[in-house]
């Protein structure tokens, strides 16, 4: 039993050596988070990655810990879906669409479309342009126009990167970029 008395020295901790305060506990939470990446579906994984980049300076939101609080997904889904149903019933998901150079904005209902190809086709018709072809690595090639959207965090993202369901939930507005500004996103890094 004596050998355990000095365990403090060999204690495994996640904080930096010398840190002893409780706030390192919050660090623990985010470190442990990484170990559970495998368990997450790609949607949540991406959400966590993008929001953890965002909250570098603030403590990690508890909502990001996998399986915590320990509520069965069956239960979570049943409460959430009831909430969502009442929010979206009868209302579409309307977002503004702007295009560089166009005099005025348009509005579209994202819930009318089943996926990206339908959405992009509709935009092409609405603004009379073409987006070119989407490549996962390089973005859109073959056109001066690049379709982007502003997400919940206020960042401008390339349309098509995340799964459609996730896109609808996080998209705040669309913008079809053109010309030199578009080069950064459209032609690969």
């Amino acid at each position, binding site marked *: 039993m004596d050998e*355990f008395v000095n*365990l*403090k020295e060999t*204690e*495994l*901790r*996640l904080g930096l050596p010398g840190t002893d305060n*409780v706030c390192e*506990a*919050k660090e*623990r*939470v985010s470190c*442990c988070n990484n*170990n*559970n*990446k*495998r*368990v*997450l579906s790609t949607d949540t994984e991406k959400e966590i990655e993008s929001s953890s980049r965002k909250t570098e300076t603030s403590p990690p*939101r*508890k*909502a990001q*810990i*996998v*399986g*915590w*609080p*320990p*509520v*069965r*997904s*069956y*239960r*979570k889904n*049943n*409460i959430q879906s*009831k909430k969502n149903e009442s929010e979206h019933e009868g209302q579409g998901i309307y977002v503004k669409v702007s295009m560089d150079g166009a005099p005025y904005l348009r509005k579209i209902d994202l819930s009318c479309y089943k996926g990206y190809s339908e959405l992009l086709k509709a935009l092409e018709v609405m603004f009379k342009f073409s987006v070119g072809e989407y490549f996962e690595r390089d973005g859109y090639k073959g056109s001066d126009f690049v379709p982007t959207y502003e997400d919940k965090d206020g960042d401008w993202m390339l349309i098509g990167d995340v799964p459609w369901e996730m896109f609808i939930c996080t998209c705040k507005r669309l913008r079809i970029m053109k010309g030199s500004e578009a080069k950064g996103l459209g032609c690969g890094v």
Partner: protein
Amino acid sequence: MGLRLPSKVLEHILSFIDSNEDRNSVSLVCKSWFETERKTRKRVFVGNCYAVSPAAVAKRFPEMRSLTLKGKPHFADYNLVPDGWGGYAWPWIEAMAAKCPSLEEIRLKRMVVTDECLEKIAASFKDFEVLVLTSCEGFSTDGIAAIAATCRNLRVLELRECIVEDLGGDWLSYFPETSTSLVSLDFSCLDSEVKISDLERLVSRSPNLKSLKLNPAVTLDGLVSLLRRAPQLTELGTGSFAAQLKPEAFSKLSEAFSNCKQLQSLSGLWDVLPEYLPALYSVCPGLTSLNLSYATVRMPDLVELLRRCSKLQKLWVMDLIEDKGLEAVASYCKELQELRVFPSAPDLDEANIPLTEQGLVFVSKGCRKLESVLYFCVQFTNAALLTIARKRPNLKCFRLCVIEPFAPDYKTNEPLDKGFKAIAEGCKDLRRLSVSGLLSDKAFKYIGKHAKKVRMLSIAFAGDSDLMLHHLLSGCESLKKLEIRDCPFGDTALLEHAAKLETMRSLWMSSCFVSFGACKILSQKMPRLNVEVIDEHPPETRPESSPVERIYIYRTVAGPRMDTPEFVWTIHKNPEIGVSHLAIK
């Protein structure tokens, strides 16, 4: 020659022994007792489907009439076990179909059940009567249809919180017109609408129907019509309560309920509008079990309902009940034995409900029969835990989830060690304990020392070091299941107490500091333990000292399993072979 009980006499004596724990003891006395016991055991329970092979069980208990199996570890409920881990029902169904065709009852929990399994059950067991699937997945409504169509004597069909591929509501129409044996039907987890006329006819021709749990797709009108046909129900799970509020609708509903004079258990109540709650008032005085955990009803309405439930023994509710509501429960529901309070906002973003530790303190003080608690709360205090322990030494199950990880006593800023010490010391009959909040190793010293009867222990975000695990594994005499996540202990304690692990059903650890090297040593040291490393990365690609993502260790007489997926690594007992995963598609 010796006093040997003739086997006929022994058989007769054993026919009075139902408890499997007792029967297990009986079977250890001597060979002839083992033989007599095994030939007379009708109800077989296997707590871990990988602890023993289906063939061995079928062979040992040829007179089996009822089989209960559990598959995935408990933390699978919270998405900590990746999909595809295992827990397949098929090998069991196949073995029983061949060896125990008189099987009448199958109960499965956290297992993967396919349509093939269900079809096999329907085809193989002529006297099949009871199918209960809890938290299972892998099947569709086609499989259910097969059961409905073929099992002539089906009494019980319950799908509890299963993930079912819903291909429509037709399955219900597969119950033949001649089927009149139903006693219990639970399809609350299915999405699709069933044809109400089919359901009405089924209910009408089932005079023994006592328990009916509908899915949310069944409307209030449907409910009224069903209640009229089955006023003898003792358990009811309603469908959706949302409907346009019409005066006739309300009075019809009220009347239908008032005719159900034997109703004891009520659940469902999805989307219940507060305006409809008074329709339930007539059944409240007789209710012993009420599940409002899916009802987003708020305070004054909740109390109006609960104050009429003087016989209530079991209450499941959301934190919308607030401290005030629990105070009312403490004064009106004096028979309360089990309380579960769930969070209404599991994602914590909107956690703003006036439910604190005080609510649980009220109930602990007012409800003398309270023995089982599950309570989600943002933060807690030692003082509250001390009061609860002092007032309710008869607690058997205490699961506290302090939602904020590492939250100390918010009044004193100390760890919750003292509080949980009081619980462990004071509640001598405690069988199940879940701890949370800020806890140091000391808390586990107390738990190890005092929680002598605890069989299942769940721990998250707690402890400081290896001492924590050391205390638990060197104490907790009755420990059978230990599940731990995100705690900073490592190899030493685990290896030192390897022998203890064989006295337990299983140990789950995720996001701790156990190294792959230690897993190897443990596995090679303990031949009757399966040490499963569940990790995205092949252990050989990392240094042996690096921690693995998840470990699941369980005792088994069946050896390493043959159905592991690619992310589960079983360590060969033979040190020369090292690691393998014996994945067989």
